[in-house]
C-alpha cells in the first residue's frame, strides 16, 4: 500500500526509521491537501454552473455568513493545521535528539566534497560507511561556505555551518548504498557535491572495520585527504590532547578536576552547567565548539570572560579533535569501555 503511494508521489526508497515516521505524515498532509483542493474546486465549479448569470443586469441576494459559518471557516483549518504541527514537531524533536548510544561520525562540507571522520580513526572522502540498525549521530560542520547534508532515502537534512557544529541522527534500516546531496547553494560545482552512504549489515560492518585495521585501504582515494591537518594521528582524541597543549588550552584549563582560570575539562562533557545569566546548558559538541569560537556567548557561572577566541586559529577537524579529547575525560575509566565507533589504525 505505502509502496504504491511512494511510487505515485515519487518518494525515494525508505531506508531509515525516521523515513518511516515522516512518510506517514506525508501521506496524511498530501492527502488532505488533495481532498481540500478538490473540495474547494468542486464547490466552486458547482457554484459557477448553478449560479451562472441569466440576464445581463441580474441582481443578487445580499448574503452574509452567520457567525457559525465564519467560526467553521476558522476552526476547521486551524484544527487540521495544529494537528499536523503537533505530529510534525514530535517527529522533528525525535530526529534532532540523538539517542545516547549513537555512534558518532564527524561530517565536514568543503567546496565541493564531503569528508567523514570517525572519532577512533582516520577519515574518508565522499563515502560514509555505517552499520544498519544502529543509531548514527552526524556532527556536521563546514570548512568554507554553507552546505547542507541531505540523504533522500533517510529523509534527513542538516545545514553545515562554518565554525559551528550541527547535529542530526539516523538509524538505517537496510543495507545498501544511498546518495548524499548538498542542498545549500555553495558555488560553481554545488551540483557535483555528491557523496554516498554505504550501509552494511552489522557483520559486514565488523568485517569492514577489520579490513581498515589491516590497512588495506592504503592508497584508496577515500583515505585521509585533508593534508592541511597537523600530521594525522590515529585517534582524534590523541590529536586533540596534543592540540590542547600546543594551542595553550592547558594554561587555563586543567584535566584533573582542579579549578583554574577556566573550568576543568575533567567530566565536563555531558555535564549540566549553570550559566552566568541563570540558564543551564548541557555541555555537548555544539557548546564546546561555540565556547572555542565565541567564549563569551554562554559563560559558566563563576568564571571571567577572559578567553580569547579561537575563530580562524582552529580548523573544523581540530575543534572536533579537541572535543573528542574532552569526551575521553568524561569518567575515569572511559578508556576501558569498548568504543562505540570503529577502531583502527591510521593509514600512513
Amino acid at each position: 500500500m505505502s509502496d504504491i503511494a511512494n511510487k505515485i508521489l515519487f518518494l525515494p526508497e525508505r531506508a531509515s526509521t525516521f523515513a518511516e515516521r515522516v512518510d506517514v505524515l506525508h501521506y496524511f498532509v498530501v492527502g488532505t491537501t488533495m481532498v481540500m483542493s478538490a473540495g474547494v474546486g468542486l464547490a466552486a465549479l458547482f457554484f459557477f454552473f448553478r449560479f451562472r448569470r441569466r440576464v445581463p443586469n441580474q441582481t443578487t441576494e445580499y448574503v452574509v455568513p452567520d457567525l457559525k459559518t465564519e467560526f467553521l471557516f476558522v476552526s476547521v483549518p486551524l484544527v487540521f493545521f495544529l494537528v499536523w504541527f503537533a505530529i510534525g514537531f514530535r517527529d522533528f524533536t525525535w530526529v534532532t535528539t540523538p539517542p545516547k548510544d549513537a555512534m558518532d561520525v564527524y561530517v565536514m562540507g568543503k567546496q565541493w566534497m564531503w569528508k567523514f571522520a570517525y572519532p577512533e580513526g582516520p577519515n574518508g572522502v565522499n563515502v560514509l560507511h555505517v552499520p544498519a540498525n544502529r543509531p548514527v549521530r552526524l556532527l556536521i560542520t563546514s570548512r568554507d561556505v554553507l552546505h547542507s547534508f541531505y540523504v533522500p532515502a533517510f529523509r534527513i537534512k542538516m545545514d553545515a555551518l562554518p565554525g559551528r557544529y550541527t547535529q542530526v541522527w539516523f538509524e538505517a534500516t537496510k543495507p545498501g548504498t544511498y546518495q548524499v546531496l548538498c542542498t545549500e547553494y555553495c558555488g560553481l560545482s554545488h551540483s557535483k557535491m555528491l557523496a554516498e552512504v554505504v550501509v552494511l549489515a552489522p557483520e559486514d560492518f565488523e568485517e569492514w572495520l577489520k579490513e581498515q585495521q589491516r590497512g588495506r585501504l592504503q592508497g584508496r582515494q577515500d583515505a585521509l585527504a585533508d593534508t592541511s591537518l597537523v600530521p594525522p594521528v590515529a585517534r582524534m582524541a590523541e590529536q586533540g590532547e596534543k592540540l590542547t597543549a600546543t594551542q595553550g588550552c592547558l594554561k587555563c584549563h586543567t584535566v584533573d578536576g582542579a579549578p583554574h582560570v577556566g573550568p576543568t575539562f575533567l567530566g565536563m562533557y555531558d555535564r549540566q552547567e549553570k550559566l552566568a545569566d541563570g540558564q543551564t546548558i548541557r555541555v555537548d559538541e555544539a557548546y564546546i565548539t561555540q565556547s572555542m569560537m565565541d567564549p563569551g556567548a554562554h559563560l559558566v557561572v563563576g568564571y571571567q570572560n577572559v578567553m580569547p577566541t579561537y575563530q580562524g586559529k582552529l580548523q573544523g577537524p581540530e575543534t572536533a579533535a579537541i572535543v573528542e579529547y574532552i569526551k575521553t575525560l568524561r569518567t575515569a575509566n572511559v578508556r576501558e569501555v569498548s568504543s562505540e565507533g570503529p577502531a583502527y589504525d591510521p593509514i600512513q
Partner: protein
Amino acid sequence: MTPSSSPTAEGVLPGHDDAGGHDGHHHHPNYLVDGTTVKSWLLTIDHKRIGLMFLASVLFFFLIGGVFALAVRVELLTPGPTVMDAMTYNRAFTLHGLIMIFLFMIPAIPAAFGNFMLPLMLGAKDVAFPRLNLASFYIYVTGALLMIWGMLNGGLDTGWTFYTPYSTHTTTTVAPVLFGAFVIGFSSIATGLNFIVTVHTMRAPGITWFKLPLFVWAIYATSCIQVLATPVIGLLTLLVVGENLFSFGLFDPARGGDPVLFQHLFWFYSHPAVYIMVLPAFGVMSEVVAAFSRKNIFGYRAVAYSSLGIAFVGFFAWGHHMFVSGQSTFDAGIFGVLTMLVGVFTAIKVFNWVGTVYKGAVDFRTPFAYFCGFLFFTVFGGMTGIAVGTVSLDMPWHDTYFVVAHFHFIMVGATLMAFLAAFHYWFPKMFGRMYHEGWGLVSAALIILGFNATFIPQFLLGNYGMPRRYYEYPARFQALNVASTAGATLLAFGFVIVAIYLTYALFYGRASGKNPWRSKGYEWLSESPPPTHNFVGPQPTFPEEPHYYVAPKKDEVKDV
C-alpha cells in the same frame, strides 16, 4: 480577431447601472490624451500615468525574467551540460530570481494597479503626495538599472537569497546589485507610505473604513508591511556590501561573524515580502470575484481583517525558512505554530471567495477564468506551504524542488493570476477599449494549464529528492525535468498570445464604454478612461458599500 467580434453587446451600451449623479460629459480630456509630449509623460504627477509607467516597466522586467526562466528550464532538459556552462547557469537563475522578485512581483500589483486604482476607489483626485509618487518611480528605475548593470558587469551567482558567507566570498560582483536592491527599497517604502496616508486622509464622504473596497484593504495591509519590513533588507544589503568591500566581519565566521545572523535578517524582510507580493493579489481577486459574480463579498469583514492578520503574523514566521539551519528545536516549534496561523487567515479568504459565488450571477469572462486558476493555485500553494511549515516534513523537502514548486504556486501562481485578472478586468477602465474575449479565454486556459504542467512535476521532483539550484543532476530526475520544461514552453506560448491581443486591443480595440462589466466597484463610477483629476464636477459621494448588487429600489430602472 476584429475589434467588433467580442461576444457581448452590453459593453457598448452607454448605459450603466451607476445610480450616482456623476457628470458623464466628455469635454474633459481623459488622462491619456491630456498632454501628449514625452515630457508631459515623464514629468507627470498624475497617479494614473505613473501607474502606467510602472506597468510598462514591470512588464518589461517580466519579459526579461521570463526569458531567463526559459533559459534555466532548457538547460535542465538533460542531466549534464545542455546549452550553457555551470557559471552561466548559476548567474541565469540568480538573474531570474532577482528580476522576478524585486523588479516584477513586489511592484507589479501595488505600484501599477494600486497606483492607478487606489485614488479612484477612494473618490480622490490623486494620491496624497503626487511628487513623491513620481520620485518613487524614478528611484525604482535607478535601482533597477544599477542592479542590471551589476548583473551584466561581473554577474552575480549567489541566488536571489545572497546567503553569506558565500556572497561575501564569491569572486562575482555583489556590491552594485545589492546596492540596487537597497535603492529599490526606497521606492517601495515611498509608495507604501503614500498609500497609507492616502487611505487615511483622502477617502471621499461616505467611504468609511468598512466601505473600503477590499482591494484598498489589501493594498493598505501591504503598504504597512512595506514600510515596516523594507528598512531591514535595506540595512542588510548595505551590511553585506560593507562585508564584501571592507571586510566588516559581521557574517563571516573566519572574522568572528555569524552566517546565520544574515539569514535571520534576510528572512525577516523576505518572508513578509511574500505577502507584499500575494496580498495585493488577494485584493484584486476579491474585486474580480464580486464583479463577475455580481455579489457582495461574503464575509467582507473577515476578508478585510484577515489581510491585516496575514500582515501581522507574517512578521513572526520567518524562522520557518531555517528549520535545518542549526536553530534550536524550540525555535522551530515557535515558528512552526506561527506559520500555521498564516494558513488559517488564508483559508478564511478562500472560503469567503467561494461563498461569494454562492447565490451570485456568474459571468464567466477572462478575469473570472483567472480567478478559477487563482483559487486552485492559492489552495494548493497554500496547503503545500502548510506542508513545508510542518517541521518534520520540511526536513526532507527543504531546499528541494518541492519548495521551488510551492513558492512558485503561491507567489507566482497567485500573483500572476491576479496580475492578469487585474489587467483584463481594468483594461477597459485604463484604456477605454475592449480586448477579444475569445482569445482571452483561450490564453487563460493555456497559461493555467502550462503553469500546472511546469510546477506539478517540480513537486514530484522535490519528493524524489532533487535539490534546487542544480546545474547537473542524477539521470533519474530527467523525465520530470523534461515535463516541467514542456510546461514552461506552453506557459510562454500563452503569454505571447496575451501580449499580441492586448497590444492589438490597445490600438484597435472597440470602445468599451464607461462600465462594460456593469461592475459596482467604486472605480467604475468615473469615466473610462478617467479624466485627469478622476472625477468631473463636485466631489463624489459613496452611500453604498462596494459591490452592492441587491435589487434596486422602485425609482431605479430594472432591465430584467
